């Protein structure tokens, strides 16, 4: 099973002829991901690492029946790329691009929502269902197939925790970063819902950080989940009013502190690890039961 992507995922890479697009296409292909087409306007007929390039997503979908897209286009063109993918019939979009204007992100959010399309990101590391498919920029070798789902607002921190799990012999069903921006296509609840339904997933790790109230809302959802959830929240030491890298990682008007998030999660029975290592250990303990 796994969620969102699996061996049936056939992806288009939007912005395939750019440096990032080309580099990561090669990495995704070498992991075994089915990258069936690339899109760069004006570059139809080219090939990138053996993948045919089209002028439009519509053309790419018509030729290849792609059902997913990974977006690497520059921030100024990212919203247009998402709209194009949706209208071409793509059902899963992973938007890697960072630095997208937030008013564009609002439009992206409602466009995919209107069309029942899944958008992961923007400003995210992507998604991997180990041994099945990888859409994004993660280091795939650190993951191992298994029964733990990971959903995270952070990239590197996700790798760290997945790495810790893998070292303990605990594999993952699907691992994904939902993105560090304030407005993202899928939030914790969207993903938790899927993990809850996924037969391969027995436990979920939620990696949050300061800013917003997404973790607090997730806690409300977790209350009714049947599967155990283990948490981690970054940013205990972050001062209010300062962005910690991610546009979304900011404590504003007293909202979104790590303390409030940890409290909300604890209240619904989520054990929150103090360190990435402790998270892996809690998972191990819980799975043993």
């Amino acid at each position, binding site marked *: 099973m796994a969620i969102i992507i699996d061996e049936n995922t056939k992806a288009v890479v939007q912005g395939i002829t750019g440096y990032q697009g080309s580099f990561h296409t090669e990495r995704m292909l070498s992991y075994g991901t089915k990258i069936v087409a690339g899109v760069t306007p004006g570059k139809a007929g080219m090939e990138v690492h053996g993948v045919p390039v089209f002028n439009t997503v519509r053309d790419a979908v018509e030729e290849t029946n792609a059902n997913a897209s990974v977006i690497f286009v520059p921030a*100024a063109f990212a919203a247009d790329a998402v709209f194009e993918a949706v209208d071409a019939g793509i059902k899963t979009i992973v938007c890697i691009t960072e630095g997208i*204007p937030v008013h564009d992100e609002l439009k992206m959010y409602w466009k995919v929502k209107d069309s029942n399309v899944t958008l992961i990101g923007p400003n995210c590391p992507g998604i991997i269902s180990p041994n099945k498919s990888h859409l994004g*920029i*993660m280091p795939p070798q650190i993951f191992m197939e298994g029964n733990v789902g990971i959903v995270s607002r952070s990239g*590197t921190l996700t790798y760290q925790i997945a790495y810790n799990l893998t070292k303990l012999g605990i594999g993952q069903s699907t691992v994904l970063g939902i993105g560090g921006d304030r*407005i993202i296509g899928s939030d914790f609840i969207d993903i938790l819902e899927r993990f809850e339904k996924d037969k391969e997933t027995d436990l979920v790790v939620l990696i949050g950080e300061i800013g917003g*109230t997404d973790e607090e809302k997730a806690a409300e959802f977790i209350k009714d989940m049947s599967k155990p959830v283990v948490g981690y929240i970054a940013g205990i030491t972050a001062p209010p009013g300062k962005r910690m890298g991610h546009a979304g990682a900011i404590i504003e008007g007293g909202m979104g502190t790590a303390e409030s998030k940890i409290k909300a999660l604890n209240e619904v029975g989520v054990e929150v690890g103090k*360190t990435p290592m402790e998270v892996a250990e809690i998972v191990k303990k819980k799975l043993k039961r």
Partner: protein
Amino acid sequence: MKLHEYQAKQIFAQNGIKIPKGKLAKSVEEVEAIVREFGKAVLKSQVLVGGRGKAGGIKLVNSVDEAVEKAKELFGKEIKGHLVEKIYVEEQLDIDREMYVGFTLDRANKGIAAIVSSIGGMNIEEIAAKHPDKIARKTINPKWGLWDYQIRELLYESNMPKEYFKEVFGIIKKLYNVMIKYEAELTEINPLVVTKDGEVIAADARLNIDDNALYRHKDLAELKDYTEIDQLERIAEQKGLNYVKLDGNIGVIANGAGMSMATMDLIYLEGGKPANFLDIGGGASAELVKEAMSIILQDKNVKVIFINIFGGITRCDQVAEGLIKALSEMKVGIPIVLRLAGTNEEEGRKMIEEFLKQTKEEIVLVETMEEGAKKAVELAR
């Protein structure tokens, strides 16, 4: 990017919102000349921080002499860590009533939050807490924008007195246009003043523009006041590094925002205090690592540096190379705790081990980030 009050007001005026008569002064002499023209005036320190008034940054002056005296007090004064270098001199308003109109990004509902209150002057959280019947809030969906019925609902729900309906209706509409046109994250009029003559006028103005959208608003980007940003943070920004100065003594370098925060948190859990947040991002070059080192070393409080890298796209050998370059080109003189994991970990560690044979600088290689934090806190004592 935050605009100063005087800049935001100029934009409001261009978009049809009434503002008081005012002029910017950069010296006591300029203040004097303006107050000579205006008669009575308000001197408003232009610092990018909330609560200027309570912090003594706003002064009513009723004569030129008083203006000169107060201007001397204000210039060079520090308000919540911000130095006063500009004073906006405004006419005094004969205030009959204060109200509030604001728009801000609504993360939870994926839209624009519209907030209207029939009272104002204090901050909006305070109004919400003390006078919930005088405040109305609504999410505007970006698909459809702001419609008249929503403005009416805001007016009715905030118990806005009928006599101000028409004026405030127009101001809400115009302020929303400012929010959209300039791609703001927040814009606010607080207080929106009704004068004794019945004029409705923006007595204060806030306008924060989305940094990611500045490329579409070149004219606004030019207004950026770099004097308002910490010098080190400014330099870091220009180098493409995310750096936030904090007041601890353990310098932190990590890749990824979450990872950087987690590293800071680990230091705190071990009883130490991080000196900064510094994210070198994904796929950092050796050069960028060197720049990161150089920025941290300019913070004289730093007693030890903890470099915590989990290599995904970032290659550990690149990080090692950058670190070696930095140590070769500048005198560091404080211990470095280094944790390298992931892509090309072996190569990176070997490079460092080789380098350690020929340098006097102290580099402690650790296996995990938890161990690294512990070590860094020890060394900082």
